[in-house]
C-alpha cells in the first residue's frame, strides 16, 4: 500500500494548482505593466492604479458595490441564520419541504433565471429599480448560502449547554444570544463573508435587478471588458483580489484561533 505522495500525485497537485493560480498571477503582474498593451511587458509601473483614482465612473461604481455588499451581506446573515435555525431546530412543520426547497434552490439555480424572475417581479409591483432592488436580489440568494453554512455548524452542536441554561431558568431569548450565538459565531462570520463576496462579484443578477442610476463594479468591468483588455481593469481586479484574499485569510485565522481557545477552555474545564 502506498503511503504518502507518489510522483504522479505531486505532478497532479502541482499542475492543478498552477492551472488555478497562473491566470490570476499573470493578471496581477500585468497590472503593473508600463505599457498600455496588456500583453507586452515594458517595465514596472503603478501608473494604472493612479489612473483609477481619476476615473470617477469606476470609483462611483466601486462605492455603490461596497454599500450594496455591506447591507445585503448583513441582512442575508440575519435571515440566513434564522433559516438555518428553522431547518435544524424546528423538526417537521407544515410547509417544511417547500421551505428547504426554497433555501437550496437558489444555490444551484442559474443566475439568469433568478435575475429575470426578480426583475419581472419588481416591474409587476411597480417598484423603482436601482440600489435597493439590487440589495433585495442579493439578500435573496445570499441568505441561502448563509443558511447552508450555519446549518452545518448547528448540526454538530452540543445542545446540553442550552438545556442547562434553560434548566437554570434563563429565558430562551437570552439563551440564544448568550450561548447559541457565541458557539455558532464562526459559521455566522463565514456566512457573512460568503454573502459579502458573492454580492461583490455578482454581475448577472445585479444587471437584471438594477435600473438607471445604480451601476455596480462588476457591471462596469463587464462593459469595459467587452471593449477589450486594459491595464486599468487589471488594476481594479488586482485590488479586488487583494481585498478578498486578505479577508478570507483573516477570517480563517480568526475562526481557527477561536477554535483553539475553545478547545483549550474545554480541556481546562475537564481538569
Amino acid at each position: 500500500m502506498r503511503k504518502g505522495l507518489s510522483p504522479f500525485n505531486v505532478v497532479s497537485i502541482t499542475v492543478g494548482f498552477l492551472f488555478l493560480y497562473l491566470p490570476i498571477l499573470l493578471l496581477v503582474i500585468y497590472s503593473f505593466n508600463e505599457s498600455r498593451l496588456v500583453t507586452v511587458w515594458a517595465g514596472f509601473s503603478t501608473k494604472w492604479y493612479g489612473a483609477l483614482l481619476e476615473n470617477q465612473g469606476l470609483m462611483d461604481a466601486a462605492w455603490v458595490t461596497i454599500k450594496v455588499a455591506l447591507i445585503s451581506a448583513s441582512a442575508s446573515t440575519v435571515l440566513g441564520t434564522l433559516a438555518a435555525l428553522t431547518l435544524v431546530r424546528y423538526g417537521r412543520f407544515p410547509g417544511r419541504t417547500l421551505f428547504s426547497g426554497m433555501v437550496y434552490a437558489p444555490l444551484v439555480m442559474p443566475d439568469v433565471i433568478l435575475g429575470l424572475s426578480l426583475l419581472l417581479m419588481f416591474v409587476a409591483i411597480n417598484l423603482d429599480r436601482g440600489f435597493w432592488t439590487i440589495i433585495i436580489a442579493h439578500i435573496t440568494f445570499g441568505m441561502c448560502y448563509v443558511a447552508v453554512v450555519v446549518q452545518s455548524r448547528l448540526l454538530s452542536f452540543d445542545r446540553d449547554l442550552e438545556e442547562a441554561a434553560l434548566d437554570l431558568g434563563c429565558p430562551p431569548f437570552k439563551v440564544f444570544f448568550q450561548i447559541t450565538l457565541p458557539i455558532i459565531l464562526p459559521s455566522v462570520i463565514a456566512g457573512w463573508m460568503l454573502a459579502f463576496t458573492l454580492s461583490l462579484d455578482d454581475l448577472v443578477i445585479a444587471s437584471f435587478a438594477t435600473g438607471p442610476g445604480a451601476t455596480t463594479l462588476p457591471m462596469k468591468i463587464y462593459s469595459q471588458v467587452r471593449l477589450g483588455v486594459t491595464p486599468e481593469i487589471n488594476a481594479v481586479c488586482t485590488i479586488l483580489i487583494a481585498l478578498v484574499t486578505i479577508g478570507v485569510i483573516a477570517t480563517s485565522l480568526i475562526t481557527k484561533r477561536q477554535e483553539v481557545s475553545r478547545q483549550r477552555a474545554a480541556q481546562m474545564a475537564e481538569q
Partner: protein
Amino acid sequence: MSDQTAVPASDDTDTTDVLLAKRGPARWFVVAIPYLWLLIFFLAPFLIVFKLSLSEIAVAIPPYVPTFDLTDGALEMWGKIKQLSFENYIWLTSDALYIRSYVSSLIVAVVSTCLILLVGYPVAYGMTRAPKAWRPTLVMLVILPFWTSFLIRVYAWIGILKKEGLLNQFLMNVGVISDPLTILNTNIAVYIGMVYSYLPFMILPLYASLEKMDESLLEAAADLGSPPGRAFWQITFPLSIPGVVAGSFLCFIPIVGEFVIPDLLGGSETLMIGKTLWVEFFSNRDWPVASAVAIILLLVLVIPIVLFQNSLAKQGEAD
C-alpha cells in the same frame, strides 16, 4: 401560503421542559421571517415569469400584454386570462435557434463536467495523499479562487488566450508554433473557461469523500496481493462515487445556464441558452419569449436539481 407559518403558539409555560425554546410566539417569528422573504422574493417571481411566458409582446412599458392590475374587476381579469396563450412556447419549438441553444448548452455542460472530473480527480486524490499538516492549506488554496470574482477569473483568460495573448507569445517563443492560434472566441476557450471556473466545485466534494475513506481497506487489499492500480478501481473509486456525484451536479447545473463564460470567451459559434435568454431580454426586449426560455430552462434543470437536493438531504440526515 403564509398560513402554514401562522400556527397558533401554545401557552405552555412548563419551565422544566428543555424544549422551552421551541414554545411561545417568538418561535414562529424565527420561521416566518425567512419563509415570507423567500415566498415573496423567490417563489412569487417564478409565478410571474410563468404568467409572463404566456403573454404577448407589446410596444409599451412594461413591454407585454395583458398586464394584471389588482384593481381590475373579476370580469376584466377573466378576459385577460383568456388572452394568455402558449404562443411563445410554440414559437420556441418552431425556431431552430432555441432548440439548438438548449441542446448545445446540455452538450457543453456534459463535456465540461467530464473534463472537470478528469482534471479534478487526480488533484483531489493527490491532496488526500499529502502529509496531514499540508491538507488544510491545500484545501484553503482550492477555496481561495472560488472567493475571487468569477468575472475577474474569466477576464484573466482573455489576456492569455487572445491572438496576441500570452499563450501564443509563449508558444511562438518556444518555437512550438509559427503562427498564432485562434483560441479566444471559440468553443475551446469556452471549455477552458468552464474547467477553470468550476474546478473548485469538483475538487472539494471529491476531496471530502476521498478523505473520509478508511485506509485499512487499501492495506487489506495490498496484503491480499492486489496491485495498487486494481485496488484504486475496485476500492478507492467506488467509495468516492458520492463525491463524484455531488461534484458533477454542482458543475453541471450552473454550467447549463452559464452566461458570462460563453459571452466573453465564446464566439458566434457558441450557442448557449443563458446567452440566448440575455440577448432576448436585453437586446430584443422580448420579455415574454425570454420568460418562456427561462421556464423551459428551469424544466430542463428540474430533474438534476431535485436529484441534487435529495442527495443533499440524504447527506444531511447521515450527518
